[in-house]
């Protein structure tokens, strides 16, 4: 049992079960019908309430490793730091490299080391929030672990899930990893500066993605050349306004 938040996600309860009287041999049927992720979903709701109360627009950033999540954040934080307030939670399996890159932009950042864990969950985010206290009326980016499978299932309480794909990946990624594209609201197609050099068919990619999720909204950007970022920035600015 985690003492800070009362959630039962600590798996190290090693006491031997000598609770009072024993009912050895006596069977009991429990018709539970409980969602397996109920605990996570309740904590996600709690995070959502935290964001709502402080007018924080939170974005869960997901992608394969190397698609450019950190680059997109670095660029965004640098270009918009005089217009919007930001905070960042970095989920990383081992290193603090990404957190260091964010720190260099002057933005408040906290790191969650997931170790062997392949995704963030609502519990980790709850504790990160308690530790960092992101400013009110801000945008909070949560960079998830680079993995298009595992993070899909775990609601963090985010307001928006943004999936990043780069043109150096296959355009069929959306149908190979449908869960992630199904649960995201925004798809950022990054590294479009490389389009002349790679066989990536951007229209085909969007077509696949829309098959999985017809409501997906796209941004085509290059973090290197800056192309397409204006639209992404406008979208971000509208988020803090309309959510106010």
């Amino acid at each position, binding site marked *: 049992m985690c003492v800070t938040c009362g959630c*039962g996600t600590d798996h190290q309860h090693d006491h031997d079960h000598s609770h009072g*009287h024993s009912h050895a041999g006596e069977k009991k049927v*429990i018709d539970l019908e409980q969602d397996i992720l109920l605990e996570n979903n309740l904590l996600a709701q709690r995070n959502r309430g935290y964001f709502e109360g402080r007018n924080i627009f939170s974005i869960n950033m997901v992608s394969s490793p190397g698609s450019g999540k950190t680059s997109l954040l670095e660029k965004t934080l640098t270009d918009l730091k005089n217009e919007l307030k930001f905070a960042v939670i970095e989920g990383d399996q081992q290193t603090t490299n990404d957190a260091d890159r964010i720190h260099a932009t002057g933005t408040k950042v906290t790191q969650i080391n997931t170790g062997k864990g392949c995704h963030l969950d609502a519990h980790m985010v709850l504790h990160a929030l308690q530790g960092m206290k992101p400013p009110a009326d801000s945008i909070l980016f949560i960079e998830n672990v680079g993995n298009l499978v*595992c993070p899909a299932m775990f609601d963090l309480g985010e307001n928006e899930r943004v999936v990043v794909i780069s043109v150096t990946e296959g355009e069929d990624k959306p149908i190979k990893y*449908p869960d992630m594209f199904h649960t995201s609201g925004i798809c950022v197609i990054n590294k479009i500066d490389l389009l002349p050099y790679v066989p990536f068919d951007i229209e085909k990619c969007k077509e696949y993605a829309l098959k999985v999720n017809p409501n997906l909204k796209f941004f085509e950007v290059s973090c290197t050349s800056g192309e397409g970022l204006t639209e992404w920035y406008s979208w971000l600015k509208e988020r803090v306004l309309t959510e106010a």
Partner: protein
Amino acid sequence: MHELSIVMSIVDIATKQTQQANALEVEEIELVIGELSGVEMSSFDFAWTQGIRDSVLKNARREIIRPEGKAKCIDCDAEFTIHQFFDPCPYCNSHFVSILQGKEMRVKSLVVK
């Protein structure tokens, strides 16, 4: 391997229920894992053997019910079976479908003793 997190969540639920019932272990557990839930069953089985070690589930008989995916077309109202999120409506080919069934992940019941 998010399947291990799923298994650990099930172990947590089972542990809590067993304690509440003043029982010692789980004899039987019935799970509902939909075909569209995103759980890979071979990974799940592997995670299961690892995750239930030294837990109340270690001797439990496991039953898994796997509801198939069902969707309703937003354009033509037809209901049909789907196996992937990108399967279109078989009647009008639309991709605007809402999922009715298949995403569920539940602990349905337990027998503790």
